[in-house]
């Protein structure tokens, strides 16, 4: 009984279960949760509502706590941006004013460091002195017209409008990544050659990992759901630790 119900819970992710989009605010989550409770709570649906309510309560607990929600999002291969208090992946640029669907992104692999963009929109762009590349410091830091001018002024067309949701991943991946090394001096840092491609594969990787872990959880009979969960959590933690290490390194670098 337990096995079946848990796998049912896993098949549908918590957002599907609550029938809400992934970027829903806590308010929306609350509303959806209460609506479903009014249908499935054992007080109303009788004892058969028990198992469903268990999953519903767990989903609510996880999604209402920002830290748990962030971990959960990663585990199901989804990345939220900037909704609520925090975002799941902290990128580089900050926002002036409200979030907009489109964001600016400088492809630092193409950038030649001419500083034209910084000249035209100094509140938006900034030069990374260490890498001699431009990057976005504040989204929409200047007037729309100023930003437009700076985009057009770029000689190599490396300033892109991207989906806000993609921004964090792109910004994260365009940073130098720690290279897996095998020798004593093998470790180092490298940037992906194409940040857009890397973002795509990053997404796929996350999805695959999530899928694999579910498969594993189901295939080994002896493994309890709790163990599977623990393992997923642990691997997620490792992953998050890796990412945060990069960030802290970057912060030191940029100052």
């Amino acid at each position, binding site marked *: 009984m337990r096995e079946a119900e848990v796998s049912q819970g896993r098949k549908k992710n918590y957002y599907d279960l609550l029938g809400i989009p992934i970027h829903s605010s806590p308010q929306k989550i609350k509303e959806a949760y209460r609506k479903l409770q*009014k249908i499935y709570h054992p007080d109303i649906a*009788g*004892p058969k509502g028990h198992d469903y309510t268990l999953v519903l309560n767990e989903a609510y607990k996880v999604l209402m706590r920002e830290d748990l929600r962030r*971990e959960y999002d990663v585990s199901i291969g989804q990345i939220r941006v900037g909704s609520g208090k925090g975002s799941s992946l902290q990128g580089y640029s900050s926002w002036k004013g409200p979030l907009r669907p489109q964001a600016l992104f400088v492809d630092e692999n193409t950038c030649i460091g001419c500083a034209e963009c910084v000249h035209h929109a100094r509140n938006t762009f900034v030069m990374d002195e260490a890498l001699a590349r431009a990057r976005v410091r504040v989204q929409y830091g200047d007037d729309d017209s100023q930003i437009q001018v700076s985009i057009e002024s770029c000689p190599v067309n490396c300033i892109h409008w991207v989906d806000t949701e993609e921004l964090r991943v792109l910004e994260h991946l365009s940073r130098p990544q720690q290279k897996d090394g095998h020798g004593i001096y093998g470790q180092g840092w490298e940037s992906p050659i194409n940040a857009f491609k890397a973002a795509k594969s990053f997404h796929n990787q996350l999805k695959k990992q999530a899928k694999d872990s579910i498969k594993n959880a189901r295939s080994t009979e002896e*493994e309890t759901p*709790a163990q599977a969960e623990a393992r997923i959590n642990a691997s997620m933690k490792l992953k998050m630790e890796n990412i945060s290490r990069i960030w802290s390194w970057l912060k030191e670098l940029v100052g």
Partner: protein
Amino acid sequence: MAEQAYTVASDSETTGEEKTSPAFPEIAIGIDIGTSQCSVAVWNGSQVELLRNTRNRKLMRSYVTFKDEVPAGGVSDELAHEHDMLSGAAIFNMKRLIGRVDTDPVVHASKNLPFLVQTLDIGVRPFIAALVNNMWRSTTPEEVLAIFLVELRAMAEVKLRRPVRNVVLTIPVSFSRFQLTRIERACAMAGLHVLRLMPEPTAVALLYAQQQQQSAQENMGSGSEKIALIFNMGAGYCDVAITATAGGVSQIKALAGSTVGGEDLLQNLMRHLLPNMKDLFSHHGIEEIKKMGMLRVATQDAIHKLSSEMAVPVDVDLGNGTKISKFLERAEFEEVNKEVFQKCETLIKRCLCDAKLEAEDVHDVIIVGGCSYIPKVRNIVMSICKREELYSGMNPLEAAVRGAALEGAVASGISDPFGSLDLLTIQATPLSIGIQADGSNFVPIIHQNTTTPVRKEQNFTTVHDNQAEALIFVYEGDEKTVEDNHLLGYFKITGIPPVPKGVPEINVCMDIDASNVLRVFAGVIIPGAKCPPPFMEVRMPTVDDGHAWSAQTLHKTYGSTLDLVTVKKKGQH
């Protein structure tokens, strides 16, 4: 309703069966058994109605008088004078005594009551007796409660002109699960089936949810979420709950409760007026009982008057030169009961903290119960919640029973065409539940204030090489060591394979359903085994009397040979 051939009352799981008989769902009645007063309410098809007894009273005194043959309770009986209840023949305050052992300080505090409460201080049931024809006749809190419930049931059946079987009872937040089984036992003795045992402030929260929903409908408002803090203080217990309400759903965020109430205020003041009270009344002679009754009535009277006056005269002549003549000021009363009021403060603060809320987040502050009329209590609540006025939409003495009646209707599957029953309570567990591990530590598996229904599990492992068996002690409470928590039960897991310590995986899973039934599943997990040993499923609590004893005996017999330790997990929340 078809008579069941045989119902084992304490193991009744008949909610499912009853739900599937849709022809005439019996509407469960709501009962609020207070330490001092009691009331019954039911959904009458359009609203909640309080039932009145033959003397046209909605609130009845909770006591049972033992006479020659037939005991009589406060439902049908009417006392000529308060003194009659204090003759030694009447047992009251049973809600304070039920399910407690004789080492409990609350039981010791009850020794000053006119009837007999005898303790041996070894962790068994106290001996309770009523004075009948100059003899102490023994009884139990369960029996007294059952007699009282039989009267209530008879009254309700006459009023409703139908058999009454299903009930929703309100209970104090601080009741242990063992105490809940004693309440269920009393109900079963009275032929009642408990549909829900509802912590009192959560019943009030449901009434509040209904009121908010109605006012939202009237104002065509959006019915946005409202947070309410409910403070309930009666004669025996003090409870606090914080609820988030929207669209008729009351979601309990946090609960806190303690055994302090009007009875403590009364006893502290009695002791203040007559410092050598304990010595004077320790023998429970007939004359002493009479004197104690006089003092009790006079003190109670003074407390009531102090709610509206700043000072009252107290004049009691207890004979033999013991005379109390005093001008009692309100400040004096408050000073004498400083600790009780401090306890109230702590409870409210803890509840706010557990709900992760600030006083400013609370929209409405509701104060109910008999002690809600005491100015000091109101001041405490208002000052902690930082506001000038309290929610005024409900009768403080009827709110809990009305909420229970609403829950009774909802849980019976009744719906209302006008949407008045479009309600739901999402409960939370007031106390953590866990097992003993890592020595005598309490390791919670379900933490306090977790939304129910809930199922949680955790893995443990052995402490000795080749340990073949393990004892699972299930405890309830929020203290670090098991001794300070309530033992709910214990059982043994066998068939652990002979491997070094720390290798076997013992899985313990706990499940609480909507009717607050706790089941503990446990067993050893052997990877790769073709037919693993079956898991155990134990409905808790399983302990009977003397629960302090059984644990001690087990520890003495087995030491740490059957102990468990927690498995440290990464990413555990």
